[in-house]
């Protein structure tokens, strides 16, 4: 019926075709670098000297080098840092976010503080943390990296959670209070399950932020406690032989986040439009 009112369906059709072209172009732009690095990771040193070579016998030499380079230990360290950081951030952040969302604790000053903390130049925080780490003799360990990552992850996670609590209905929780639960019980048993998907998405997002950080980890723990990004940065050489290994190392760091990202993207779009970053 409604198409009767459109005077120019032809224009709209052309508009849609243009849209599909844009999406196809964007898809190629996103996919080709990954594909290229995937190819390179199976090439030998001399094959790498011929960048446009596509038909070649793949070999696993590069992958063997990378998998024996301690990259798994680094990946485990990154995972440990990420999990500890995110666990603290989610527990502390969800309690605080609930208080801010329901009781407007601290008014707009709190919200401003949490927003401002997200955009602090990392260089402002890192030198005192480095200095403190030296004094406490925890320099070069993961403790200092976790502290630094908390400063990075906690504000983002809290900001997201405030939005999710804002969007959650209040009726069930009020009913729980009437039924005799204490306020904290109501929070833990009734409110938290309601925003479960939001907490999951925030946690994965916070984990990715921590997993990807190079700046803090490079300064605070460059040596034996190298996290994955620091280790990857170590493959930064430009002799042909090692390019293949570098490609394999890049893929090792990329694959886990790609998997994680597929799980949260739906929630991110919903979370942002549902109030997480309410404009």
């Amino acid at each position, binding site marked *: 019926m409604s198409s009767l009112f459109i005077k120019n369906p032809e224009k709209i059709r052309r508009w849609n075709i243009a849209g599909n072209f844009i999406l196809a172009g*964007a*898809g190629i732009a996103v996919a080709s670098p990954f594909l290229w690095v995937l190819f390179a990771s199976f090439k030998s040193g001399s094959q790498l000297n011929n960048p446009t070579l596509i038909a070649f016998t793949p070999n696993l030499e590069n992958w063997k080098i990378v998998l024996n380079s301690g990259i798994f230990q680094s990946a485990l360290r990154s995972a440990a840092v990420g999990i500890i950081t995110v666990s603290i951030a989610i527990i502390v952040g969800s309690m605080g976010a609930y*208080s801010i969302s329901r009781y407007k604790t601290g008014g707009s000053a709190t*919200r401003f503080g949490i927003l401002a903390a997200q955009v*602090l*130049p990392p260089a402002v925080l890192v030198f005192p943390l480095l200095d403190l780490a030296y004094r406490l003799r925890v320099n070069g360990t993961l403790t200092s990296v976790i502290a630094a990552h908390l400063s990075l992850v906690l504000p983002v996670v809290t900001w997201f959670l405030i939005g999710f609590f804002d969007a959650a209905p209040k009726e069930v929780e009020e009913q729980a209070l009437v039924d005799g639960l204490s306020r904290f019980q109501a929070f833990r048993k009734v409110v938290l399950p309601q925003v479960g998907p939001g907490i999951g998405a925030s946690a994965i997002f916070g984990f990715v932020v921590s997993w990807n950080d*190079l700046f803090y980890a490079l300064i605070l723990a460059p040596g034996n406690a190298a996290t994955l990004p620091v280790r990857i940065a170590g493959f*930064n050489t430009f002799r042909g032989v090692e390019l293949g290994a570098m490609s394999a190392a890049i893929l090792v760091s990329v694959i886990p986040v790609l998997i994680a990202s597929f799980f949260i993207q739906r929630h991110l*779009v919903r979370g942002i439009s549902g109030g997480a970053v309410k404009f």
Partner: protein
Amino acid sequence: MSFRLRMMGPLIMIFLAAIGYPLLSSFALSLTNYKITQRNATKFVGLAQYKDVLQDRSYWSSLTVTLIFIITAVILELAIGLAIAMALQNQKRFRNFTRSFLLTPMFVTPIAVGLMFRFLLNDQLGVIPALLNKIGINYDFFGPSRAIYSIVAIDVWQWTPFMVLLLLAGLESLSKQPFEAARVDGASPFYTFRRVTLPMLAPILTVAVLIRSLDASKVFEYVYAITRGGPGTQTQTIQYFTYKTGIQFYRLGQASAMSYLLLLIVISIVVVLFHRIEKVRAME
């Protein structure tokens, strides 16, 4: 103590420890000539570091480099991001898959992205210069006066998806009525875009641009992975310059002063951003 304060307690404590302490301590450091190699010779020098930094031409040139980087990168990301977000919104089939797929670059470790493009764009071993060569174009992506734009291109590849995410969320939250009205009146898609979509999206566009600009001011990994500030100091962004001062030359006092000056600029932008957000919140 009331319930709401008890719930806030842990958050406030960690904020103070992980952000408040370093923030104050960094200010204290910036008032000294602290060098990590000569810790016992540390003296209070008042605002002398700030004076030195403000008179340092490298500081201003790295601020300029960062500004050029931010402006070109964010304009490109906004234009491309808006086109993709609108195309995604109109898409009929495979919606979820396309969205997930196109958003992937923003989740990838930035250092890996930097190394990936260093490889792809390398003038001897990279595939892109090799392909350009075949059609007779000889372009050195990291040569003088070009390197900064190659870094911009990398940022666009990685962060346009974030722009898409924000704009798509914005587009989907807009009320449908004005679009219906425009359709019934037979407005052309371009007219609808200019007179309905853009004005309604304006607050979100402002916030998205501010968020991306503040994020882009932190650019470090691509410079660290690819150019290390070169050729000369043409890609020496503020974050990389501060890193060099503090870590390579151990001048933590000076590096702290540099980052504090940057903080002043950033915070004034955030005040504008926050004002905007609160205003829109009040309107609802």
